[in-house]
């Protein structure tokens, strides 16, 4: 199965290389543990784990938007982060994986416009819409193919109910924060959400594998396509 996937990737890269997008095909952006023996996309089902809760979020300015705007209508990969988090097993790991997924989708025309990436900040005080807008600008290229939204909230009053419902506990690490730099303890969780707003998979730092995620995205896309017919 993995050989077939590699062949398909190679063929796709060849076509893209002809189109001049050489850099993206220098290596498979999906960095996976070759020992995983993943099932073929579409050959398995993913549970409906829970619905994404109601929430009010901000993007780019202080105009309130429904969280559901970012979690329905497309397959969504959502992670909680904060912009200055440097825990190598936390936000940077999620960030790197999102980068890999974004690159992989750019190579999968069948997924164009069907997937969005969402980062929702755990620190609405520091991560204002303006701060996040400057980060989002780095991903404007290709945004029509795979948009990457950087969201925040007005305050913890708005954020905490979403965190609680999605099982994302946070706390301040007093010891690590004693030098004046705020450190937030949180479990790395990345949520795969179908176009109806159902969480269908949750990845931790033990299971955050980009090939696994891409297979799950393809599975959701194939099942949604089959359901429409």
């Amino acid at each position, binding site marked *: 199965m993995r050989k077939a996937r590699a062949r398909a990737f190679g063929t796709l890269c060849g076509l893209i290389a002809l189109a001049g997008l050489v850099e993206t095909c220098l290596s498979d*952006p999906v960095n996976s543990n070759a020992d995983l023996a993943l099932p073929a996309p579409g*050959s398995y089902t993913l549970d409906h784990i829970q619905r994404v809760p109601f929430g009010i979020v901000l993007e780019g300015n202080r105009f309130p938007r429904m969280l559901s705007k970012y979690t329905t209508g497309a397959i969504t990969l959502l992670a909680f982060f904060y912009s200055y988090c440097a825990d190598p097993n936390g936000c940077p790991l999620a960030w790197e994986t999102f*980068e890999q997924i974004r690159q992989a989708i750019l190579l999968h025309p069948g997924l164009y416009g069907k997937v969005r990436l969402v980062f929702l900040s755990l620190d609405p005080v*520091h991560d204002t819409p303006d701060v996040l807008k400057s980060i989002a600008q780095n991903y404007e290229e290709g945004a029509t193919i795979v948009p990457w939204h950087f969201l925040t909230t007005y305050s913890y009053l708005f954020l905490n109910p979403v965190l609680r419902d999605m099982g994302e506990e946070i706390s301040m690490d007093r010891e690590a924060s004693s030098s004046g730099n705020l450190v937030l303890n949180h479990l790395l969780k990345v949520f795969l959400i179908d176009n109806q707003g159902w969480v269908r998979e949750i990845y931790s730092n033990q299971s955050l594998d980009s090939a696994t995620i891409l297979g799950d995205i393809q599975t959701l896309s194939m099942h949604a396509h089959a359901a429409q017919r």
Partner: protein
Amino acid sequence: MNRSARYWLIMAAATAAWGFSAPTPRADETCLSPYTAALIKGQEAYLHVWTLGEKGLGDESDKLVTIDADPKSKTYGKVISSVSVGGRGEAHHMGFTDDRKYLWAGRLDDSEIFIFDVGTDPAHPKLVKTITDLTEKTGYVGPHTFYAIPGRIVIGTLSNNETRDGVTGFSVYNNKGEFLSAHPIPTDNGGDGYGYDIAINPKKNVFLTSSFTGWNNYMRDLGSLIQDAEAMKHFGNTMVLWNLKSMQPEKVFSVPGAPLEIRWSLKEGDDWAITASALTSKLWLISHDANNDWQAKEVGTIGDPAKIPLPVDISIAADAKTLWVNTFMDGKTHLFDISDPTKPVQIYEKVTGKQVNMISQSWDGKRVYITSSLLANWDKKGEDNEQVLRAYDWDGEDLTLKFEVDFTKEKLGRPHHMKFSGRQDKASLEIPGRTASK
């Protein structure tokens, strides 16, 4: 610009005025799901003990008992709280959710599952939810293993509601306690359909299940069961390797004699698991062969199998060099050198009770805890029916008793499964109390 360079450029800008965070825990105590957070690598503060109620003793109810395990505490070795759940339903095993905030505890008779909040105040757990729909949703009976995966719990069961034999499956619930899916243990390709433990190896996208016996046997008096040749045929003789992503069986192994607890090596780079078969008193290794195919192989003997010592629980060291084994019938705690897992060698044994069942060790291996009760109808009778928790220090050569709690004298019941909690730093629960964004 490559991806990593772009990421680090963004990070550098973002962190210019802010600091860097500390790493979060990745691993866990030696026998927990690899997805469980908040590893206790130092001194555990509390022991939670899932305890079977006993008729005529105290309030007679099943209960979660919490014991102070911190030697520096004034109440070290004492019971500091107890939460009764009502009735007696064969309390058995427990498991943390991935965030370690909640502890799920099951009963093998009535299939009820109790969810305790142990994260808010681990010294005083609170019962927050009772799940009663397992049999209705799945047809399975006897929730045994509670194994965390992100946002969910996988529940391994022992029986079914139709024949009440050992044919069963496992189910998945979300952390809110809502049923998601059920998955039968295979009865074809050599499978007997029986279930018991679950253990995941995320690096290989696989998990293993083992097999015990059904409600008809585990709720029956052990003395009469052993005399019933037909009933004794109804024990599991298999393990199953599953694909974790698809939750589909991939291979059935023949492992005669009721293979019970499964422990994956936690050593970096290792990809093997070990189990003990209760009726045949053997150690089995599950690992790759030269062709990279998973195989199960008998690798050792525990005590004298002819005497049926009944190995009931095992605990693997964090460095995968040693394995504790408790044998119920002779009350012995054994230590095996498994640094070569294909050739386990017993290096120590000690009688730790008249009957011993569960065994748990600290991450550093310096402390070992045992409990006495196996199943209400399988425990010994009369004076041999001691019901205790014993805490030992292990110095590499001998187990030294540090404290014991007599669950009969304390009018608590029969102690079975144990889990650790650390002392809660209440300050760390504070969400930064900062005001709205500007």
